[in-house]
């Protein structure tokens, strides 16, 4: 209950800040819509139509009144309800982020386990170097490198869009990746994955390095603990001890970090989606900002804020599941 209240206050804070900031910074949405030679009367009429003639607090409460009913207003450029536009793009970004997260966890987890298994050897040193490189190059640069490598020099993946445009899509939702699996349309699924793979990988590489480093560190510390030693005396080998005794305890700090980093990753989709012309929220956000489409910007930001708080909630729940000491607290 207290949790819900903090979440609401957070969202309200975000709403206020965004609402005020995009109205204070230079750039007039109305001016961008008008044809050359529009009269003062035209401007005043359009301002009144979108409510820009009222004071900022007034505008805010009108907007907030709509929001609580699920109405985020009308996009200035597209002249469509923001709610529908944003929700239509949300699945694309969610699928991309989750795919990137899964890839990061798999790659980072594998590196951590392998590095722990071969700790204090040259293999571990090599893993450290690889992680350092993965971490010091930002996601959009990885995106460019991947486009160059697997899109241009050795074109094995698609580098633009979400799906090949000529394909007939039988989907009822915008969760293409998910729905193609449900409908057993593996041909479409393969095409979607082939589009999604490089942008997801670009997002996943830096995160996988963070996961790999932290998890390896906590695994190595856990390997010195008494219960791990005790398991060794029971006849268990290194791999078994790492997986069954150490991993579950060592994963807790990593889990918290993944929660925080996942929100950064979702932030990263904005640039990556642009880079790969991927039709998601991030791409829409950039267009909205360029066009000063205030209602659309507000809608997207609120949605991102909702995702962030949702992710944090999921992390807290997972933490309680994995750590029995918190369960009966």
């Amino acid at each position, binding site marked *: 209950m207290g949790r819900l209240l903090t979440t609401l206050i957070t969202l309200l804070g975000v709403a206020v800040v965004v609402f005020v900031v995009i109205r204070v910074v230079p750039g007039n949405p109305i001016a961008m819509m008008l044809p050359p030679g529009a009269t003062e009367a035209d401007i005043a009429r359009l301002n009144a139509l979108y409510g820009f003639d009222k004071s900022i607090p007034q505008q805010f409460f009108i907007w907030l009144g709509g929001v609580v009913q699920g109405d985020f207003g009308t996009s200035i450029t597209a002249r469509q309800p923001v709610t529908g536009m944003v929700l239509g793009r949300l699945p694309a970004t969610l699928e991309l982020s989750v795919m990137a997260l899964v890839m990061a966890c798999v790659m980072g987890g594998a590196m951590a386990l392998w590095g722990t298994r071969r700790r204090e050897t040259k293999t571990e040193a090599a893993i450290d170097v690889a992680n350092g490189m993965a971490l010091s190059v930002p996601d959009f640069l990885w995106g460019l490198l991947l486009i160059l490598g697997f899109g241009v020099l050795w074109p094995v993946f698609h580098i633009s869009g979400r799906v090949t445009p000529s394909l007939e899509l039988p989907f009822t939702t915008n969760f293409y990746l998910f729905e193609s699996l449900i409908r057993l349309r593996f041909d479409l699924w393969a095409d979607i994955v082939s589009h999604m793979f490089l942008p997801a990988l670009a997002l996943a590489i830096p995160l996988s390095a963070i996961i790999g480093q932290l998890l390896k560190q906590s695994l190595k510390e856990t390997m010195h603990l*008494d219960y791990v030693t*005790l398991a*060794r005396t029971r*006849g268990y080998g290194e791999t078994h001890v790492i997986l069954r005794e150490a991993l579950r305890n060592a994963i807790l700090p990593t889990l918290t970090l993944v929660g925080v980093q996942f929100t950064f990753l979702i932030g990263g989709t904005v640039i990556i989606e642009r880079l790969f012309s991927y039709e998601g929220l991030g791409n829409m956000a950039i267009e909205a900002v360029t066009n000063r489409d205030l209602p659309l910007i507000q809608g997207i930001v609120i949605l991102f804020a909702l995702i962030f708080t949702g992710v944090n909630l999921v992390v807290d729940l997972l933490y309680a599941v994995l750590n029995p000491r918190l369960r009966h607290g």
Partner: protein
Amino acid sequence: MNYLELKGLSARIMRQNHPLLRSVSLALAPGEVRGLVGESGAGKSMIGKAVLGILPKAVELTGGEIWLDGQDLQRLSARDRRHRIGQSCALIPQDPLTALNPSRRIAPQITDRLVDILGWERARAVTRAEELLHEVRIEDPARVMRAYPHELSGGMRQRILIASAFAAEPKLIVADEPTTALDVTVQKQILKLIKDMQARHGTAILFVTHDLGVVSKVCNRLSVLYGGMVVEDNDIDSFFAGPRHPYSRALLAATPKYTDPGASLTPVPDSVIAGVRGEIEAFDQRQAHV
């Protein structure tokens, strides 16, 4: 025949010429309880760890043999050695608060070995674990089996670890200061419990402790260590009647007497320390000439 035999076991910190064990030899007959006594750093825990194959990565064995049940452990592959130790030996650790995995329930922590290493059916292992918990006088074994370690007291956890050590009917148990981390009131109960369990199961125990009082209560024989060297190997009665080595004599004199709580503590005299250090130096010089 001896169940465990160490022949001239030497160990040192990796790549440093700092010996931790200096040609330690000792034998343990089936069902025998041998105390390993000495100050901190005397190498008593190191011996237990060497036997169980859990030496820290930075420690290497430089010589000697460990024979377990007529088998030279170092001649086995790492995997076989591990299995052999897992099947026939067990450890009662020092600190019950850190020796149970905090994120796993008690049941699998006892039954894992029975199922995975000894190849029992899980149901049989669970029954066995409950029997053992009952044997170490835990009131409600079924509930404890489902509990997580943080829900249990230190004394309870040590009982569980003792039950777990005896569960596979090992021939040898290494008890590494099993009462040091416990409350004084619980210490006595746990000590009595280990003694009772040992008597009932006839297990040989290597009992690592710095407390000669504990040794007098549970052990048949003892080895006194200083600087990784066994300075005295004696049976309990003759040791407490009159230790042979000056260092052991001083150590015994330094043990506070419960009969005379007002007496001031007598430290081991410097002259005795100097004497035993001299022996160690002489030993190292002999080693260097070999």
